[in-house]
């Protein structure tokens, strides 16, 4: 080693920091502060509905991890989301002497993780690549929806399943009921923040760098001796667990789950959120989920007939002009600024 190695500036750019680049952490901080302060200024329906959109954002991050960092697209995220909601619903009906909320949360993590791990293991170890993976995840979504319809004794079929709001117990220390909107809001927000932080940490650690390597050149990674199927399976399992967990919280928050929550249509919406928000940035995916869901809600009230058309147009504009989504466009701003001045 040459003597001056230590003097060299350590690299600032990390493999996985694409999308929003270096400014992502700062922007995420601002976004979370705004979300945390929002209930002080706003009340009513917004505070009721926002936690659900945050959970959509969490599901969008689970797709962002796969699509942006590993380069594999999944049309099955809604399937995991619905699986989580049903798991929570069944847990809430149980009577095991333990707070069913915790059972529901734990089981949803396990169910989503295991379903994704098993599916991923068979697909990736067989060398299935992008396009076929999309098709299988699409089928996964359809299967969840169909099972929810057909197993009506357990799931309620087309009628759906009602789920009580959970309450968080802390042994002898007390209990927080999430029946009111504000406590529910402040229960969901930290979950979303922690998930974001966890994913940011993972994607900038060794695991994330290897995922980025797989996204960039699978053949090279194999030839270097990386077991890429193991890494892809782990990423998919993590993604499935996160989407399923988000679904569990969504189910209890919305008090209801129906088969269509796991359907292809909803899975496609998730892809649209992430594409608009920016698939290369976890914050882009998260905010994409929250903002596009909010926008859809708003548009559907002012123009019930055409809101999907408007959303479709936005999607096309973003895809054509900003391939990196809104996050990608934001990342370009400093460069544009520099080139003008």
């Amino acid at each position, binding site marked *: 080693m040459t003597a001056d*190695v*230590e003097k060299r500036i350590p690299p600032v750019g990390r493999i996985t920091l694409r999308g929003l680049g270096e400014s992502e952490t700062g922007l995420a901080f601002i976004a979370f502060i705004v979300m945390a302060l929002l209930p002080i200024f706003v009340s009513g329906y917004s505070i009721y509905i926002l936690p659900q959109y945050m959970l959509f954002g969490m599901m969008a991050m689970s797709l962002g991890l796969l699509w942006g960092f590993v380069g594999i697209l999944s049309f099955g995220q809604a399937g995991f989301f619905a699986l989580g909601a049903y798991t929570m619903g069944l847990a809430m009906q149980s009577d095991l002497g333990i707070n069913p909320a915790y059972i529901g949360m734990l089981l949803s993590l396990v169910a989503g993780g295991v379903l994704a791990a098993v599916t991923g293991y068979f697909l990736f170890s067989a060398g299935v690549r992008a396009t076929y993976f999309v098709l299988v995840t699409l089928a996964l979504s359809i299967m969840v929806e169909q099972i929810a319809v057909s197993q009506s004794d357990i799931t309620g079929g087309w009628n759906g399943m009602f789920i009580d709001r959970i309450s968080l117990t802390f042994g002898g220390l007390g209990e927080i009921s999430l029946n009111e909107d504000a406590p529910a809001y402040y229960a969901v927000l930290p979950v979303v923040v922690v998930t974001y932080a966890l994913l940011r940490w993972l994607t900038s650690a060794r695991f994330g760098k290897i995922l980025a390597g797989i996204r960039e*050149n699978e053949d*090279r990674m*194999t030839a*270097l001796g*990386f077991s890429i199927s193991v890494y892809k399976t782990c990423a998919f399992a993590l993604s499935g667990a996160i989407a399923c967990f988000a679904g569990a919280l969504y189910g209890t928050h919305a008090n209801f789950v129906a088969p269509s929550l796991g359907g292809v249509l909803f899975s496609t919406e998730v892809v649209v959120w992430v594409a608009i928000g920016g698939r290369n940035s976890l914050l882009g995916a998260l905010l994409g989920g929250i903002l596009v869901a909010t926008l859809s809600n708003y548009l559907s009230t002012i123009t019930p007939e055409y809101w999907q058309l408007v959303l479709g147009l936005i999607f096309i504009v973003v895809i054509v002009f900003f391939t990196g989504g809104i996050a990608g466009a934001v990342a370009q701003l400093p460069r544009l600024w520099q080139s003008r001045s």
Partner: protein
Amino acid sequence: MSVLLETKNLSKQFAGLVANQDIQFSLEAGSIRCVIGPNGAGKTTFISMISGHLSPTEGRILYKDQDVTDLSVIRRARIGIARKFQTPTVFDNLTTYQNIELAVLRTGCPRAKRHGRIFEVLDLIRLSDAWDRPVQFLSHGQRQWLEIGLLIAIEAKLLLLDEPTAGMTAEETASTARLVQMLTQEFKLSVIIIEHDINFIRDLRAPVTVLHLGRVLLEGSFEEVAANDQVREVYLGHEAG
């Protein structure tokens, strides 16, 4: 010196087309071997069987006296057999540093030593100054070097280089020859090189194996091979003269 790699009756057929036939090959540890032959002679097929990208129809491959014929590409890379492809196969959207970093991550090098190790490799392949440059902006020759750097970084013992000097200037070709010689002399690596560039092969001063129609036509020093009438006829033409 001990034998590092040996192939026994190695054959490969593609639906009746004989790509390799009964190849008996032996490489000593710490040595270089050039594999030459006209297009379609079966050179890349031969290397692909050693790297695990193709499985032979018949025959065995022994590496450090261990039968590796049935091992996957990943397992072979992990025991030290690593390959550079004909077209540079690197991570184009990442920087030079990040490319080498990925390879170093494979080795389980402790975090504290990673940075130093990455620059050690970058120094060897003379890309230290371009550490933060995205690889897509490097010259073709530099990308070839980077790919060799990836193999060094995973601590490979046997490097399989498929046309490492393709697209290089005469000067770059000469320094590639020096790099390969240094790797064998200082780091005791072993190298099998597929090449078309006669000057490069001459510079290496390494034994040459000539393949023709999937069979070994001749083995010997560059001078012996260049002087052989049969070789001149099938491959070298008038270039050697």
